[in-house]
């Protein structure tokens, strides 16, 4: 499912007959399945299929780019906290507690606003907000490894703490965090789309599922498909990601 989506997003320029930003004011609000426009057109006569696929390009690549830093930073911070325990753990717990006190979307909205709308702002926002999930999972796992024989053995061999974390603990934490990565990506995509919907994410006219939903909202009586189709895309991606996550979890559990 995800493969199909990525393939469609990658080949969008070759399969789309229309420029996603080209307006055609003589052909506005065409219903889906009309001649020439498989999914219809919006109020400015832009082809929805093209916009959907180009939006997939933007949304998926922003999602991937915004996930890189939180994934590594969060995992590393969490492993360090779990491995050292004691004071390091207490400090990091206090920081995560503080972050958790902020309602998630409030934090995302406010930080995105403060750092400025656009792709750059989104990536910075999730650098600040996104690492928590990984830190928590990695911390719990690393703490459970702390007193195992193989960690003790590595210590006896005189390995440095950094080396133990990077080469002994990290490979053992990895499967779990990758599963978390899949669910978190779905959540991140929803956040990106929500920001787009609120007008503080990817800015129009760049196609983005969120801004497409919000542009369609005023016409929900007459042309509900304007909002419904991009929403379905988000749901589709979410399901695809969670299936990948489940699959990976099953494979590694064995």
């Amino acid at each position, binding site marked *: 499912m995800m493969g199909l989506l990525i393939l469609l997003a990658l080949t969008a320029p070759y399969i789309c007959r229309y420029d996603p930003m080209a307006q055609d004011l003589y052909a506005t609000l065409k219903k889906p399945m009309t001649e020439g426009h498989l999914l219809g057109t919006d109020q400015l006569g832009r082809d929805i299929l093209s916009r959907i696929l180009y939006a997939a390009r933007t949304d998926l690549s922003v999602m991937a780019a915004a996930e890189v830093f939180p994934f590594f930073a969060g995992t590393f911070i969490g492993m360090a906290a779990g491995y050292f325990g004691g004071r390091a753990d207490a400090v990091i717990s206090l920081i995560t507690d503080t972050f958790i006190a902020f*309602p998630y*979307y*409030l934090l995302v909205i406010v930080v995105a606003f403060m750092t400025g709308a656009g792709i750059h702002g989104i990536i*910075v926002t999730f650098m600040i907000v996104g690492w928590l999930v990984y830190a928590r999972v990695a911390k719990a796992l690393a703490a459970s490894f702390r007193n195992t024989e193989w960690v003790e053995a590595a210590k006896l061999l005189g390995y440095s703490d950094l080396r133990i974390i990077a080469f002994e603990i990290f490979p053992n934490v990895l499967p779990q965090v990758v599963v978390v990565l899949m669910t978190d990506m779905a*959540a991140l995509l929803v956040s990106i789309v929500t920001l787009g919907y609120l007008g503080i994410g990817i800015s129009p006219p760049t196609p983005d599922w969120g801004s497409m939903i919000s542009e369609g909202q005023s016409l929900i009586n007459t042309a509900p498909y304007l909002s419904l189709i991009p929403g379905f895309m988000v749901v589709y991606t979410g*399901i695809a990601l969670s299936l990948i996550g489940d699959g990976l979890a099953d494979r590694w559990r064995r």
Partner: protein
Amino acid sequence: MTADIQYKIKKETRLRAGHHFVYALLRALSVVVLITIAVFFLMRLVPGDPAVMVLGEHADEAEIQKLREQLMLNEPLSKQFAAFLGNIFLHFDTGDSIKYGVSSRDLVLQYAPVTLALVAYASVITVISAVILAFLAATHKDSLIDHAIRVIPAFTQGMPVFWIGLILISVFAVNLGWFPVGGVGSGMGGFWHSLTLPAVTIALGQIPSLVRSLREQLLEIMDADFVLTLRAAKIPESVIFRKHIFKNAFVPTLMLFSVNLSYMIGGTLIIERVFAVRGMGKLLFDAISNRDFPLVQAVTLYCAVFVVLISLITELIAAKADPRMRQKEKSFGNNAG
């Protein structure tokens, strides 16, 4: 002799309970302090000069200076921070709103009741439906209902809540005309009636994950040794359920719900926008489009402190209802109730 020992045990438990209370309070307080610091530094995230951002690139130099003066941007950071802290701890305020020229605190307090009502309404719907569904799933394990309840979260996880709201509007407000499309109705009945769709939307975003975790908790309790013992003692199943399982499920439900509440408040702000409800969400988005920094800070601060308060209260209730919660670290490894 025995009385003496009993007294000692009693005193010790009371001490431990008091200790727990103080510890929870201290932790909450330190989180509040950190929140305050974080909210202060939020404004430092703005690239460039906030005053220029408010007034625009081509604003008058004198105007910019005046606003810089008002926002204390000309002072050294330490002095700004001291003033910010002083304002918060003396007046619970983050300064006057740039747009409205009145205290941000007053604005927040003015807009908060609608949001609180919405959150409360959504919470009631969430808890009631989640508990019913989780009980159904747990008592009919591996039935069709159970499977449905386990699969649904996979679908809803990646579903934007505001989009669900739009679908509900389209079906129940536009096509069926049961509810208003947006806004808040007047009068007691009109008020709650108009909040129904937004509340259901928020609840729909919460229920699946809550049901899933609640179901696992319930199954764990139902398989616990003490339930087996009760069954062996020929206690009627209904009594076991009402008196024992329900009682034991209360604390986990409460804790799960308190974790979800923070998330729910964030969602509420967005749903308010979808349904054009004039609450904190409206205030926040207006403040954002006006670049009204003090007001954004006030909304953020009040929401976060509210979440800390709620989680402190739930933690204390949980500790009162279930003494085991007080000594998680020194657990005796015994799960029986």
